[in-house]
């Protein structure tokens, strides 16, 4: 198996920035990371493939991403008013393929949240489809397979 360590380093650096932006609520910069046609998906069923015709926890196109950021930042939503910072950790990055300019990458992910109910952890498998954009990337697809999403979650007031 041949390793493209440069691509892996580039992708890892990009995804670390993406996670850091979410942890630090730099939402407008985060929106700029996306292709306009990009999709942010949190599936209910981890075996689903036709996300458009399946119920998801979140299925955000460009318009919904912007509306979601507005909701998270406007102060109108009571569930977001006491939102403390989150901590995301990622590891186990693996390039799945690199075809026609699109790089698909998978990694392990944990989001830690401190709220009034205590410290909560959401482990997930994270999969991105990235497209090269100058010396960086844009996100064409982000799929967050959060453990227990097909059973029961708590409500969340941030982005995975």
């Amino acid at each position: 198996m041949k390793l493209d360590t440069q691509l892996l380093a580039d992708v890892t650096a990009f995804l670390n920035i993406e996670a850091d932006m979410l942890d630090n609520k730099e939402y407008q910069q985060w929106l700029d990371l996306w292709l306009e046609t990009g999709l942010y998906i949190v599936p209910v069923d981890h075996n689903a493939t036709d996300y458009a015709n399946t119920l998801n926890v979140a299925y955000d196109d460009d318009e919904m991403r912007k509306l979601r950021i507005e909701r998270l930042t406007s102060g109108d939503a009571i569930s977001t008013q006491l939102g403390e910072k989150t901590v995301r950790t990622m590891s186990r990055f693996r390039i799945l393929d690199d075809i026609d300019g699109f790089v698909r990458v998978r990694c392990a992910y944990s989001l830690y949240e401190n709220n009034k109910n205590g410290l909560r952890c959401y482990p997930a498998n994270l999969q991105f489809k990235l497209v090269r954009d100058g010396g960086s990337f844009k996100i064409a697809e982000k799929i967050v397979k959060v453990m227990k999403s097909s059973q029961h979650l708590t409500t969340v007031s941030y982005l995975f």
Partner: protein
Amino acid sequence: MTTEIKVKNLNSTADLVLEDRVHKSLYSDPEIFDEELDKVFNNTWVWVAHESEVPEAGSYKTASIGRQPVIVVRDRKKNIHVMLNRCRHRGATVCEGKSGKTKAFTCPYHGWGYGLDGSLRALPKPEEYENILDKAEFGLVKVRTESYNGMIFATLKDDLESLDEHLGGAKKWIDLFMKQGGGYPLQTLGDHRFRFPGNWKIQLENTTDAYHFPIVHKSFIASVDEEAAEVFDFLDGEGYVEDLGNGHSVMVMIPELVDLEENLDEPIPERFEDLAKSLADEGHSDEEVRRLVRAVGGSGFNLNLFPNIACSMAFFRNLVPISVNETEIHHIAIGGKGAPEAFNQKRIRLHEHFQGPMGFGTPDDGEAWERVQAGSIAGTDGWIMVNRGMSKLSTSTDGNVKGAVCSETGMRAAYQKYKKMMSVESGK
């Protein structure tokens, strides 16, 4: 009234429910919760599934009656059974997971095998049971089951009134709700499940609480277009709440969307113009396009069926009591079986927009419910008020008690039924 009632000195939990208020201990006393499981959930019709969740022979869904696990399954003859999810040998569950399809239920512990109708078919090494076990008597325990318009209910009480009598005045509203398939049979399209740290009755109240909508859901309203925001601005409109008897109630928020088969010539709302165009492009007639578009956003009312299911505008809301201070909620998406893909897809997107752990509505509801659970224990005045609208009641055309859309008429209906059930001596 500000005097604290000493809960332990009361004769009955039923004394904690007055006409206009309920005592805070109903949210937080573990003994009351245990009593509710016995007197409420084990003594009435509990919703367990919609028929489309078990569409074919062998389709099953796991559910619960109170905290008792049950299996809802369709057998080879297409009959629906609800059975306790408990092996008759040593008690292990014989079915796990939310739903699926199977030919039989096999206990993972010692391999007892049950048919789809619950009958005990086979067990390993039967010779040791010779003359001491009659297989005919050791099938999975079946629970009394009846359906109305696709809604499957089960009860542990054999001598209870029929489901038909239990639903009574609510049946008319179930029939209206089922029209939102847009001319196609109603079909479930998956669910969101989440838990919140609070008592089940806080959620039960919420489904018939229009008063909170513009406050709690301000950010949702901000995320829809102006026309839709006007539709959701219903507190000053002509809506109403009706007490339908037996703890059931209906809260009509948008009267013009009560019957989705009427007013098909209304203008297409701007937010559904894309859907209308794509349906027309697929060759659907103007009439069918209008019927689908009118149904896509759901009905203009919430039907609260005591104790555990609501037909809530465009989805089913099923509550599952976990403990006195934890409740699991299932928000079940619905669409039309065989309906155009664009219609069901739009319904799924609308469901995701408001419902579920990351919806624009549910997390804010959850926050409000958590705060009720946390704050209600404070102070010496132990009452939760449900008296809103009591001085302006009227009688509906169906002869029911009727209050304003933002009245607490539906909560009072549920609590008076609750009081009646909790007044019964244990074991009766």
